[in-house]
């Protein structure tokens, strides 16, 4: 464990397609990269007992979550030949259809980015203390669990 404070992964609200597009554009100067891979988590309008999920309200144990994101990042750099990696997760309300997780990795070659992205996303789902309150259209709610 390092003493430096981990980077803050969280953004308030949904992650916009402009933000995602700009992140891609910023990599045009990094010409050692030959392959990018992107995961976008989108809020699904699940139907549970005839009620439709309208939004998810995300909260997190932010200190621990940022420390976990940091160790996932370090593990991925150790395991795979990556040039760079960016992770953003929403906090607060994200409506169904909007993006709540953006993982963007880059490498000189393509094969590694497929494996690395799966490793990173599965680790995020399993290890990071983020909580999701699924809010139905009638304003009742239930707590989401990753499966």
């Amino acid at each position, binding site marked *: 464990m390092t003493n430096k404070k981990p980077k803050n992964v969280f953004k308030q609200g949904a992650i916009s397609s402009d933000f995602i597009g700009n992140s891609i554009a910023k990599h045009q100067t990094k010409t050692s990269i030959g392959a990018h891979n992107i995961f976008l988590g989108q809020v699904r309008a699940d139907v549970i007992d005839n009620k439709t999920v309208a939004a998810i309200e995300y*909260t*997190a*144990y932010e200190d*621990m979550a940022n420390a976990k994101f940091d160790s996932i990042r370090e593990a991925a750099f150790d395991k795979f030949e990556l040039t760079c990696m960016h992770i953003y997760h929403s906090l607060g309300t994200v409506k169904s259809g909007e993006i709540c997780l953006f993982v963007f990795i880059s490498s000189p070659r393509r094969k590694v980015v497929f494996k690395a992205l799966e490793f990173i*996303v599965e680790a*995020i789902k399993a*290890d990071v203390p*983020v*909580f999701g309150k699924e809010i139905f259209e009638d304003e009742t709610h239930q*707590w989401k669990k990753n499966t």
Partner: protein
Amino acid sequence: MTLNIKYFGVIAEITQCHEEVLEFSKSSIEDLLDILFDKYPEIKIKDFQTAMNNEIVSKNSIISTSEIALLPPFAGG
């Protein structure tokens, strides 16, 4: 010692607060949970993990930091 207990998600709904300060004279996580179960019987049947120093710890861990968090199932992504 003085502990700062943090609650999240469905656990915070039951405790009706996101954190509280508690004077604690015993030693393990289990001892602390016994106290919390007396105070909030409903959390006893809930699925949650306990974290100390940004790591998930087992019930028989000895409390060594002032901040303890009760974490319901994760839903990131």
